[in-house]
């Protein structure tokens, strides 16, 4: 059965801590998720492009040291480039979004900064799906999706206008109004909050289903 399902590579780097629920969400959404160790990628044992769909889940990769997501973005820079060239749909959740941001996979001049409160914030949040070309939210435009937030560096800032996919429809955990953005071609989606939580959350599953469908 799993042979018919699309292969979803879920990146694991030391510090990743949401890989299990992310894999469970992809599995529920009809995918065949596999954990991909960064160490194995760096040692040439596996390739990031050997999948139909790629996800960088949440956590504190590299311990969040230096800056959130920077270690993954630095060490895997060439691999991310090949992934983008292969037009494989990519999802970055929370710390995964931060890593994709530092790998510069979104609009130039846009980045993530510290929450206005200057502290981590964990709370339930409502998100409005905006009209965009994002493949991960296709058909969901206008809907309100509920899933929790848990981050300390999640405010979308910058001089450029990002490709906005999600906005906050309730109190913002970080002080900004943008909850998710996508790349110019709509195939790379980054969001700070957690559609994979709790297990089986129907609102979040819609996003995972879309990604698999588009792969």
């Amino acid at each position, binding site marked *: 059965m799993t042979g018919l399902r699309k292969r979803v590579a879920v990146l*694991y780097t*030391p*510090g990743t*801590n*949401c890989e*299990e*629920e992310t894999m*469970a*969400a992809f599995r529920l959404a009809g995918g065949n998720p596999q954990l991909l*160790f960064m*160490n*194995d990628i760096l040692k040439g044992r596996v390739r990031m492009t050997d999948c139909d769909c790629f996800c960088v889940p*949440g*956590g*504190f990769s*590299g*311990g*969040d*040291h*230096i*800056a959130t997501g*920077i*270690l993954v973005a*630095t*060490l895997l820079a060439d691999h991310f480039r090949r992934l983008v060239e292969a037009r494989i749909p990519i999802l970055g959740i929370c710390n995964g979004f931060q890593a994709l941001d*530092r790998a510069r996979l979104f609009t130039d*001049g*846009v*980045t993530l*900064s510290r929450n206005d409160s200057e*502290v*981590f*914030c*964990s*709370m*339930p949040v409502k998100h409005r799906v905006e009209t965009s070309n994002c493949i991960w939210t296709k058909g969901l435009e206008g809907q309100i999706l509920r899933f*929790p937030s*848990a981050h*300390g560096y999640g405010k979308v*800032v*910058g*001089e450029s206008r990002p490709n906005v996919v999600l906005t906050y429809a309730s109190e913002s955990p970080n002080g900004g109004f943008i909850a998710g953005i996508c790349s110019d071609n709509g195939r790379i989606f980054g969001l700070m909050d*957690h559609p*994979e*939580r*709790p*297990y*089986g*959350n129907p609102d979040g599953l819609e996003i995972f289903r879309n990604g698999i469908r588009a792969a």
Partner: protein
Amino acid sequence: MTIYRIVIGPKKPDGKQADIFKIYNLETGCAASDLRKLHAIFCNSVTETVVETMPAGEFLEVMYQNGVIDPEQEAIIRACGSKGVIVEAAKVGYRYYGRRRQGIYVNKLVHVSFTSEPVLTTLKPRGIRQPMEYFNLLALSDAELIGLSAKRELHLSLAQMKKLAAIQDELCASRVTDVFLETFAARWSDHCNHTTWKALGLLKILMAATEAIGNPNLLSAFVDNAGVWDFYDGLAILFKLETHNSPTMKEAYGGQLTKLGGVLRDIIENGLGAKPIGNIELTVAGEIERRRYPELEGKTWPASLLLRETFSAIADYGNPMGVPMLFPRAKSHPDYSGKPFALGGSVGITTRAAAKKGSPRKGDLVVLVGGRTGNDGLHGATISSGGITEQTDTGDSTHVQIGHPYTEQKMMRAGLEIRDRRCASARTDFGAAGIVSAVGEMGESTGGKGGVLANLALVPLKCAGLSNWQIALSESQERFLHAIIPEKLTEAMEIYDRHELEATVIGIFTESGRFQMIYDPAVTEFQPEMELSGEIALDVPYSCFEDCPLPEIEVIEPPAKTNHPKYPDVSTENINEMGLALVSHFDVCDQSSATRRYDSTVQGITYQGPLYGKNYNVPSSLAVLQPVYGRPYGLTLSLSFSPWQFEVDPVAAAINAMMDALATQVIAGVRLKDICLADNFYTADQDPYAYYYLREQVKAIADLSVRTGTPFITGKDSSSGSGTFGGRTVNVPASVAVTAMGKVPDVRKLSPHAWQRPGNLLVAIKPYATRLDGSILSAALDITGTKLDHFPVDAAASYLHSLEDLARSGVIQSAVPINCGGIFLRLFEGMEASEYSAFANLKPSLFAESFGGALIEIKPADIYRLMDDFRDLQPTVVGFLDEIQTGKVFSVLRTMLDWTALRMAWLKSFERKVNHDRTA
């Protein structure tokens, strides 16, 4: 080697001068021109800029001392290496200008600060290895023995020192080593050996109660890191709570960080491995405004600072670990000003097969995994045997431990693979007394005979120059000990490597019956029988550790309290005022700004988290996890602790705590037979009556445990709750936190906390308390009570069984326990969490705290059934819920309370109090 500094500052589009800079200090042999390649790593060009010239003006720059490895060093070295720049050491500093300098906390035990340009010669820890010291104890007088104990901070009594001299004689040794002394001091410490409890005969009381109950859910109690309880489908759940009072008093951030790290390790390394799935946090700080102990002002931590450091530390450790926070609470009480109650806990899940404590076999290898060993945390075990004073508070920087969750998080994952591939025969973590405790205790059971040999020369070090006793005793964090089966060594090493964990074979388990430690760099391979070589640091039979002379403890019964305070009569005239005093109290006010700092939904298994209600700001009394994806099974958790009750009557308060923890579970729908308990006692070594109270508390809860059939399966005690500052000794009241862990087959059948429907009735169950002594209101009014209402013990078992029947009857629409703040606070919280008004016509006392009772919501049609079928629960109608008309109405005895004022007082109090030292 040259030290280069790369300075990063924020971009200021408005042209204003930046006032905070991050400085990367890099010790490298590369040329300065190579450093440009690193700018993209250290600087986010959208929001930051690389600063070539720092601004003029007064500044404060803070970074870690040389002796402390910067947690960011590993990532910096790796990231720089990927750009071809080899960095040997790194330290991150922050420089503050102008008003930013205010309120920056510089912990002199771990930080160094500069107000002028720093001159850095190296970033690496330095040290000269000291030779092993030798002592002939047989030649020392009593005074010299005691002097030696004091000089080395061994905290050993004269009887214990004399026993060591006798052991030297038995071993026919002409002298003993410093490692010998330190090993015995650690193993005989209160922390490792529970000497106080043994002397009082207490441990066996609780263990006997647990054995007598014979609950079939019990898989492991009091023998391993954690207590283990049967779950469903071949799984087991486990929990462990521990205090870190002295380290937190010494350095709050580091102490709290390592507290959580320690209990998480206890779960990770319990049995043959487990996964942490929930965290527990309770800190009781001293008084925020020094009213009872004004002489402490300026002599020790402001409680508000200790609390802020606590929130940061728990977030900084728990969030990266990816373990959801289930139950965070902060409290403040004057008698915890000398030493706080810093309680942390974790719950976990594993397979039933891996639940029991492992035992190494002869020939298994001693493998040290994780963090490197440094000079941090030395004497952590022995200092638990002594109190804390200004002298110990500022004297010995080696007590400070630095937590590093990144390493532990890697082990959390790798440990499950080690478990599932059956690579280890036994596992444990490194806690107090480091190698001495972890290796020594594991080796005690080898092959049923005991025996282990460790080579200290092979232990990977953070810094050169550690002597043998420092390597053996170091409490460096995030280290793990695995007894690896030789045939599985390659497989285990592959797992560690994949998870980027350092792992080193440092010895072998033998059946020599002896605990042996050597220092010999030439010995890198081990056989079960081999000659000792190099420096022989320790070579003693395990039997020597058994005869620890116990202290003679005098148990003094305190005189009865005879003066009873008067409280203002609560009437419709002053009820609003009383309500304001209550909801503003630190212990019960809105703490959600701190709670939200902890990730409570990671792992995707949280069914009922730490907060609930429409504003997500009311604290849950019962945490519920659904730990297996797609399965309805639930793990439930409750905790009870009121310092105000313990201050009045420690024994009655212990009964109330236990009843509260149990009733919170049962009223929600957890079966009594499916609940187990944890105890965490805390007494003051300088309190002459502490041991009396402790003994009576243990007897009381053991008795209640047997009566209710709910066993204690894990616990810990700390008996050093005294602190002397400004010439004043402050003793904590004899206290015990009771935590209950339960299981339910289907979480959907549990009663919610939140009110469900207007028109429903609110009914108090067993509102037995009428006195205000020990209540939050008494604390808010600054009145110390002397007589505590407590749950009637004789009725406890039948009450809980009836409560169990009520929970299954279908009558309950929502339920909360009546504990701190009494019925008044439950009504307030119910309104805050819902869209309803509440009308109360109370017969029972509003503010008295009936621990063990509950406030339930029922449909009006069920009132007669409740009154007829559950008469023994003393159901008492409190009031009803109604729709909101023009605004929320909180009505008591037909008096409309000022809801807005109450709400604002509840919302605003916390921020004001946790910032008290900044505004005072």
